[in-house]
């Protein structure tokens, strides 16, 4: 029905059909056509770009959304966090896109590896620069200043690069180009070497890279050799120290420190790992300190040796050259008359020698200066090393010794040079004098004979000229003789003066020499002392250590012994105390226990007594209950019985109950024995049923009243029956029996009525008595009833007795 009533949509109906051929399928035809048209149109529409447009717009929208989210994440870290939390792979994406700039603290391993690589690169660069340090020494001060600036630029560039976390090697390659930026970067650099002290690796990068002189800007304007030297060793030492630390410390520590180097924070935040790393670094510091110091000292010493030897060599050469020069001069002066050509050569030689001397002197000066610089540097380094380290190392002392030696040698060489120079000076003076004389002579000659040129004695001279020349010569000779006489006179004084001067000079020299020697001696002594002190200290320290160890050992042993003894003592005391306490406790506990036991026993006894009483009471109660039950049963019988006939219940159960309840009491047993057996087995009628039964009995008795024991004929029965009918019983019923009743006057009817009356009054016993007086047939008729009545009476009597007895017992127990 549902299927039939359902209307199939026509379009769907059409789907089931194939070709629209028949007329029944006509309605579909249109739909099919329409559908075809529509699909064609849709295809056309799509081909014209609707789908493409939608795709494009969708892509644009998504891209715009993502871009907007990214930009917002860049500005707001909270938003970024929410994004990262909610969208999977957003973290990676945002990290890739946004984190090319100042990096957030990121303890990823990749960053550590990168930094380690950077450190390695920097270390290599430092080595390069260390190697290149020596050639730079020989350049002039201007060059050095240039270098300073370049180095400063290095520092600045590197520090900045550290701050911005650009790849270090890239930044390091910039120094050549960056020295022009030094002016701008100087204030930044000013901050950084101070503030960047804590991230030591970065400081190492900055400072070590510019090994030459990362001076504070004030001293840059006036580079003093000493200060430079001091700073140089200091910074170089630091640099080497940093290098040593780099090699010693882990890259992790570096990575840990690195993030905190951003923007030259003066007080970076530290984590416990930081502190740990710092402690580690400090330890490494100390170790590296020493190593670095030693290394530096060694290095410097080698440098110094080299420079010193070169300087000494140069000095010697200079001295030699000077000597040569002076000799040449002397030679030239002395061999005045050897020949003009030879003279020329000699003078040329002299000039050559002069030049050589000049060169040598320059060289010597330079080298001496350099050597002195180095010396000072090394001295400063050693001083620093001595001050920084707790005890002067053996090596430092030996270095000091060498230093002293070299200094001495340098000084002596320099002295030699100066001496030679002095000699040369003398020679030069002499030469000057000679020259002067010669000039004078020439002048005089010229004045006399102006045409004559010295050396141009071509052609013969005239007699006049010769004469004047001779006269002049004679005059000159006289003059000279007189001068000579004067000179001879004054010779002594001059000699004295000269001697005095010489003496003073000698004194000065000797003083200088002395002072030098004294210094040397002092130094040696100091060195020796230091050495001895160091040795002694080492020795003492070793001894002290062993002693301390021994003492510690002894102390620990002693402690152990003492502890053992104490332990024993304490344990024994403790045992004793414990024992005592235990005993006390036990006694107390015993006492308590006894108390408790006694009480318990008392309680038990009381309970027992009580229990007995209770038991007795209960028994009595049971007995009472049983007896009462028996009595009730006897009185009421089976209450559920339909008629009076069935109201008998065997009393045996109740009697047994009573027997049990009574227990061993003889009294009760006797009483119980008095209950008739038949009552026990068959039960007794209650009074009511007897009463009811009595009615019947009475009727029958009245009917057979005339018949006696011997029986009677039918006729008698009939007559007796008639009599019963005729006799009316109404009046006698209510007749109460008098006190005395005459047995002879009782007849059946009377008896019956009396019995009924007594029964109605509830006196079964009396009724039974009366019934017992019946004679003849009525007696026979009533015999059963009488029997039952007697049983009931007996049982009742017994029960009553029992109940009374039980009550008595119960009462007795209550009391």
């Amino acid at each position: 029905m549902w299927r039939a009533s359902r209307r199939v949509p026509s379009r769907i109906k059409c789907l089931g059909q194939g070709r629209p051929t028949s007329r029944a399928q006509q309605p579909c035809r249109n739909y099919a056509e329409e559908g075809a048209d529509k699909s064609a149109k849709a295809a056309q529409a799509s081909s014209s770009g609707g789908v493409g447009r939608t795709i494009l717009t969708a892509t644009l929208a998504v891209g715009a959304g993502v871009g907007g989210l990214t930009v917002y994440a860049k500005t707001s870290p909270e938003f970024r966090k929410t994004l990262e939390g909610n969208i999977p792979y957003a973290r990676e994406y945002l990290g890739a896109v946004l984190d090319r700039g100042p990096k957030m603290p990121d303890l990823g391993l990749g960053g550590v590896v990168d930094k380690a690589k950077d450190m390695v690169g920097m270390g290599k660069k430092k080595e390069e620069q260390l190697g290149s340090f020596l050639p730079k020494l020989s350049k002039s001060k201007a060059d050095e200043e240039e270098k300073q600036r370049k180095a400063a630029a290095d520092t600045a560039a590197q520090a900045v690069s550290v701050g911005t976390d650009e790849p270090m090697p890239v930044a390091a390659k910039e120094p050549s180009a960056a020295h022009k930026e030094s002016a701008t970067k100087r204030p930044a650099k000013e901050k950084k070497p101070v503030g960047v002290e804590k991230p030591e690796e970065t400081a190492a990068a900055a400072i070590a890279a510019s090994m030459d002189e990362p001076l504070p800007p004030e001293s840059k304007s006036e580079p003093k050799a000493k200060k430079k030297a001091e700073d140089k060793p200091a910074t170089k030492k630091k640099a080497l120290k940093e290098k040593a630390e780099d090699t010693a410390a882990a890259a992790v520590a570096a990575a840990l420190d690195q993030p905190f180097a951003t923007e030259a924070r003066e007080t970076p935040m530290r984590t416990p790992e930081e502190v740990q790393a710092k402690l580690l670094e400090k330890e490494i510091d100390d170790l590296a300190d020493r190593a670095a110091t030693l290394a530096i000292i060694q290095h410097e010493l080698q440098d110094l040796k080299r420079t010193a030897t070169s300087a000494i060599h140069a000095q010697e050469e200079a001295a030699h050259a000077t000597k040569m020069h002076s000799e040449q001069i002397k030679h030239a002066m002395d061999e005045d008359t050897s020949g003009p050509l030879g003279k020329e050569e000699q003078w040329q030689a002299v000039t050559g020698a002069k030049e050589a001397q000049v060169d040598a002197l320059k060289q010597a000066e330079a080298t001496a200066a350099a050597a002195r610089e180095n010396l000072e540097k090394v001295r400063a380094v050693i001083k620093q090393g001595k001050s920084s380290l707790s005890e002067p190392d053996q090596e430092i002392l030996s270095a000091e010794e060498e230093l002293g030696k070299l200094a001495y040698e340098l000084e002596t060489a320099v002295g030699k040079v100066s001496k030679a120079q002095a000699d040369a000076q003398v020679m030069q003076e002499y030469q000057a004098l000679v020259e002067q004389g010669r000039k004078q002579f020439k002048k005089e000659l010229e004045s006399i004979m102006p045409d004559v040129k010295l050396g141009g004695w071509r052609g013969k001279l005239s007699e006049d000229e010769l004469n004047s020349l001779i006269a002049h010569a004679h005059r000159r000779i006289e003059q000279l003789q007189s001068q000579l006489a004067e000179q001879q006179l004054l010779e002594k004084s001059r000699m004295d003066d000269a001697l005095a001067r010489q003496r003073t000079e000698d004194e000065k020299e000797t003083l200088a020499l002395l002072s030098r020697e004294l210094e040397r001696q002092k130094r040696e002594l100091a060195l020796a002392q230091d050495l001895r002190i160091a040795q002694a200290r080492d020795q003492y320290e070793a001894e002290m250590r062993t002693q301390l160890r021994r003492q510690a050992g002894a102390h620990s042993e002693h402690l152990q012994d003492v502890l053992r003894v104490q332990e024993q003592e304490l344990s024994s005391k403790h045992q004793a105390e414990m024992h005592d306490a235990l005993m006390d406790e036990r006694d107390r506990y015993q006492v308590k226990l006894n108390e408790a036991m006694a009480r318990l026993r008392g309680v038990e006894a009381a309970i027992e007594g009580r229990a007995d009483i209770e038991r007795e009471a209960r028994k009595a109660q049971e007995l009472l209950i049983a007896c009462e039950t028996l009595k009730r049963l006897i009185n009421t019988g089976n209450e559920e019985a339909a008629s009076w006939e069935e109201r008998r219940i065997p009393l045996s159960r109740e009697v047994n109950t009573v027997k049990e309840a009574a227990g061993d009491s003889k009294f009760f047993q006797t009483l119980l024995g008095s209950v008739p057996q038949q009552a026990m087995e068959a039960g007794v009628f209650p009074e009511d049923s007897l009463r009811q039964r009595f009615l019947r009995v009475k009727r029958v008795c009245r009917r057979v009243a005339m018949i006696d024991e011997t029986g009677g004929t039918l006729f008698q029965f009939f007559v007796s029956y008639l009599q019963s009918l005729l006799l009316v019983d109404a009046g006698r019923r209510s007749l109460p029996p008098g006190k005395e009743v005459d047995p002879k006057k009782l007849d059946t009817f009377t008896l019956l009525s009396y019995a009924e009356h007594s029964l109605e009054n509830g006196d079964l016993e009396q009724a039974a008595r009366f019934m017992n007086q019946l004679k003849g047939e009525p007696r026979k008729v009533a015999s059963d009833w009488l029997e039952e009545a007697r049983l009931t009476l007996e049982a009742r009597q017994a029960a009553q007795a029992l109940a009374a007895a039980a009550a008595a017992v119960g009462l007795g127990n209550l009391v």
Partner: protein
Amino acid sequence: MAAEVRSEDELGKKWDRCLADTIVKMGGGLAVGVVFSVFLFKRRPWPVAFGTGVGLGMGYSNCQHDFRNPNLLHGTFVKKIEKGEK
């Protein structure tokens, strides 16, 4: 005869018995009389009456005898049942 007979009911029972017996006897007598009457006396009424009377008299006599000697017991034959038969 397991049930006990109460003494007061004994007479009643006796009377019942007596009556039943008389009726039976009367019936028997009637029957004999009828038979006699039918077969021997050509359907005359007097044998029936006679028989009935005889029955009645017998019954009466029995009753009387019973009532006169009440102490006489009425016994019944009990078939002895062997142990094997149940």
